[in-house]
């Protein structure tokens, strides 16, 4: 049964969609259109579907459902462009008394430089990206401002009850989300979209989920997870709660509300997923958002979603290799169970980006000389430390010829790393020696992550166009086009510490007070139950002995 291996992507909320937009872009920048070159090491049919539109054109679009609020899409058309007739019908064609037709047009939003360029390329049919460097930092308000990918008409799913950025009636609580889910139109419609993606899959692995976890989308996603668990209980569900700061100042009540949402989101996702991996570029995220994680060769603004979501997307683009490599039949199920022993449903994310070798550098020497941890944590409140019990690692972008130096020293032959023919093998050996008692599995592919525009210009000046490191700065007119990376999932004691710190934060809340200020009331029992779930979960991590 080699066909299929399909995975369906489910995105809930604006923050998650920021990440999703970058991720789809990265994937499409990596597509190989040249029929003479060898096929990609990635099987893109896992996350994409082939279709055919009304004009008999073949389409290739994500198997994805993307949920956001009314008014969040800017220039993006809800039904997509691929399957719809463009243009606005003239009023005379509307069957109604002629003088009783009123056309109400909202102004078209101005497209930024990148989108304009994309349109031009479309016209000429040359997929020529990355030749230009774009400065988009000032032009990005919503995620569709940099989305390259075109969606299937089934993909966008809009919540009409709440409006994007509506301060009068913000979509801010778990319970609002679950109410929307149960409202007459939303839930059923979403389930139908989902069912149709499942129906067309021959050999579905499962679902990968990106969910906002501090606003109303937490409730929507929580309900959706429960539905998936009911309806498709044999499928894997890999959930990534996303945490991003949106504005700098929050009232205490807003902060408390976020904690409540988080508790619910973490509890529900761990109850109904195979594996949960909270993701953020901030080191702490409970009440105030802490400073950004440090990446040696990145200069990014941790309060700017366009930047941080690119980093999170790069992580996903790397770790998801586990279930979408062309060469093997490894499944999402295997990845999830590899880091969830004895009820440890939650794991940490770690990332090295770019994992830059020097010019003409090699992996062997780089690892030999490496000091400090190989990667940074992307899970809030979890530091990279010694408490790791199990880890699954994926490496991208190290070519075969970059494994060992061209000029060898005699002692190299005795180096236990030496005899490996893949970067996975070599890194595995390195980890075995450097991290005592950690059980690791490592996979790799040679293809880099594509970082052409609209990937933000966040690489330091010492990263060259091809992603390598050099002490000479890169010319300012040149963008970094690709990057190597290492991404990992770790089951560590620190995961448990994160959960208990959230639990104690939650226990400090004056629930009555928050509920009174909330527009609707969360069942107090549900909440205490969720807190209890977190506590139990955190206890699974107390001892690495039995793993």
């Amino acid at each position, binding site marked *: *049964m080699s*066909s299929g291996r399909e995975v369906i992507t489910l995105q809930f909320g604006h923050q998650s969609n920021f990440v999703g937009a970058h991720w789809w872009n990265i994937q499409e920048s990596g597509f190989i259109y040249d029929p003479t070159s060898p096929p990609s090491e990635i099987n893109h049919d896992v996350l994409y579907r082939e*279709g*055919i*539109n*009304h004009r*008999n054109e073949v389409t290739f679009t994500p198997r994805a459902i993307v949920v956001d609020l009314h*008014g969040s*899409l*800017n*220039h*993006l*058309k*809800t*039904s997509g462009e691929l399957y*719809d007739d*463009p*243009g*606005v*019908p003239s*009023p005379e064609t*509307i*069957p*109604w*008394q002629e003088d*009783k*037709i*009123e*056309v*109400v*047009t*909202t*102004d*078209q*939003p101005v497209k930024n430089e990148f989108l304009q360029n994309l349109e031009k390329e479309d016209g000429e049919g040359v997929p020529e990206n990355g030749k230009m460097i774009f400065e988009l930092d000032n032009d990005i308000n919503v995620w569709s401002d940099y989305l390259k990918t075109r969606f299937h*008409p089934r993909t966008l799913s809009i919540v*009409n009850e709440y*409006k994007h950025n*509506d301060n*009068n*009636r913000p979509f801010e609580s778990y319970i609002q989300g679950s109410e929307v889910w149960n409202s*007459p139109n939303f839930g059923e419609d979403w389930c*139908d979209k989902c*069912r*149709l993606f*499942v*129906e067309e899959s*021959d*050999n*579905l692995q499962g679902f990968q989920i990106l969910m906002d976890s501090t606003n109303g989308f937490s409730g929507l996603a929580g309900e959706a997870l429960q539905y998936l668990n009911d*309806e498709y209980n*044999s*499928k894997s569900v890999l959930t990534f709660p996303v945490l991003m700061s949106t504005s700098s100042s929050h009232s205490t009540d807003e902060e408390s509300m976020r904690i409540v949402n988080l508790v619910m989101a973490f509890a529900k996702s761990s109850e109904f997923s195979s594996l949960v991996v909270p993701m953020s570029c901030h080191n702490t995220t409970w009440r105030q958002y802490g400073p950004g994680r440090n990446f040696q060769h990145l200069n990014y603004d941790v309060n700017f979603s366009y930047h941080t979501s690119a980093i999170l997307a790069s992580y996903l683009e790397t770790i998801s290799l586990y279930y979408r490599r062309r060469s093997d039949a490894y*499944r999402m*199920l*295997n990845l999830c*169970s*590899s880091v969830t022993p004895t009820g440890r449903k939650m794991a940490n994310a770690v990332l090295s980006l770019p994992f830059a070798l020097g010019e003409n550098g090699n992996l062997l020497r780089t690892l030999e000389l490496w000091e400090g941890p190989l990667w940074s944590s992307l899970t809030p409140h979890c530091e990279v430390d010694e408490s790791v019990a199990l880890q699954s690692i994926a490496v991208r972008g190290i070519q075969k010829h970059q494994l060992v130096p061209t000029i060898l020293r005699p002692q190299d032959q005795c180096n236990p790393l030496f005899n490996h023919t893949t970067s996975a093998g070599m890194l595995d050996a390195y980890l075995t020696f450097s991290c005592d008692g950690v059980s690791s599995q490592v996979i790799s592919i040679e293809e880099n992550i594509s970082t052409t525009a609209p990937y933000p210009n966040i690489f330091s000046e010492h990263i060259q166009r091809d992603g390598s490191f050099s002490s000479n700065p890169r010319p300012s007119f040149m963008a970094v086009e690709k990057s190597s990376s290492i991404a990992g999932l770790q089951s560590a004691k620190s995961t448990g510490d994160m959960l208990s710190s959230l639990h104690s934060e939650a226990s400090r809340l004056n629930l009555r007070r928050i509920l009174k200020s909330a*527009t*609707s009331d969360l069942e107090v029992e549900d909440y205490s139950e969720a807190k209890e779930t977190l506590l139990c979960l955190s206890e699974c991590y107390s001892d690495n002995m039995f793993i």
Partner: protein
Amino acid sequence: MAAISLLNPKAEFARAAQALAVNISAAKGIQDVMKTNLGPKGTMKMLVSGAGDIKITKDGNVLLHEMQIQHPTASLIARASTAMDDMTGDGTTSTVLVIGELLKQADLLISEGLHPRIIAEGFNQARTKALEVLEKLKIECKGNREILVDVARTSLRTKVHHSLADLLTEHCVDAVLAIQNPGKDLDLNMVEIMEMQHKTATDTALINGLVLDHGARHPDMPKRVTNAYILTCNVSLEYEKSEVNSGFFYKTAEEREKLVLAERQFIEDRVKKIIALKKKLCDKTDKNFVVINQKGIDPLSLDLLAKEGILALRRAKRRNMERLTLACGGTAMNCLDDLSEEQLGFSNLVYEHVLGENKFTFVEECKHKHSVTILLKGPNKHTLTQLKDAVRDGLRAVKNALDDGAVVPGAGAFEVAVSKELHKFKETVKGKTRLGVQAFAEAMLVIPKTLSVNSGFDSQDTIVKLLEEYTSLDVPVGLDLSSGEILKPADQGIYDNYSVKKQILGSCTVIASNLLLVDEIMRAGMSSLKG
């Protein structure tokens, strides 16, 4: 939408003015935006979003959803009106208009020094009286198909062009009558609404049976079968590695392989049970066999079924399990042990229709007809959406009429009667509360007035005529929108839903009163305003 931005309160203004004045102006503002929509001669709006999304609608509820209403009071009114639509499926525009008018009337009285609480009390008494009038005016419609058609037509002609409305009317009435099941609540979910993006809106049809939005996933399966047994089931026919054999607990590859085979065998055994029954019932006859499964069917299982000429569909809607058995008979099976003929449904014709990448499967000419499908057709997405909204409302209108057992004369007749009766009633009310009753009586006339204006007539002329004729004829009279003259709604078959009118009276009174008593309510906490 442009007009609604007028409602955005300038921050300074809101601070300076009384909350009450703000509420009244907001209610008027939203009334202004909505009033041109009322009735069959109202304005159809085409909303074009910045991205090019198109929505064509005349429905108050849809418009309220589409508008970016920033003003808190306006959005409160909008939400209350749409909540009312959720319950009965109609009456949104009227609700907004009546609330606006109640507040306008109240505004006059308040400026003369009357306390809002007294007005609210008057509204309350007026409502009680108005509900009595409603009881008197209602027309029984038990078992009368014609009245059902009339009420659905009245509603649909306010939403789509009348030629299309008349077509949809027949479909909605027939659909609801088909799924009626004596002794059971009417469940509109048993009418499937399916969209097909091709041809034109007037090709919309009622299918006696089900249309599924998917087809067979095997090239060798039949595309069209007649005389078919239908097995409706919710049983996995898909081999999946379960958690236990994900590789963690098995020492050798052999051991794992064995387990895989055993599990695969398990699924195959299920498929074989289906095949065995098919052989028993169909071989050497002209009968055929169709499987419709809520769970998955993997390629290997599909292959086995295809070899036997069985048509099999996977991942059917959960709700279609029930619909299928209502349409074709049989039982939805959760287990395939002891499968027998009685558990199967039957359909004379099952066939597939392919449209681009979409497949549809028609299950027609069924044994029972307790579930049907309205198949919407239209050249583009926005036409389909408009049709879908209209059909949903049409179905609701028929259901309401059946549930209510009665309808109410439309074309402004009900409102005129209420207004007139309230004026009489007012005389019996003591003290200043009477002024509140009078205000309510005036406010009701906003409906016939607006219907008149929207048809190009003079609203004062209309009101005078209506009130006079109502008094002299002593039967409900409404406005003929094409001539501007008086008509008897019963003669023309212009009926509205009883429950819609009842809702309008109730929610308008509550919301208007809440907005009037804003000071007190703010002190008690805004939460009591919700819903």
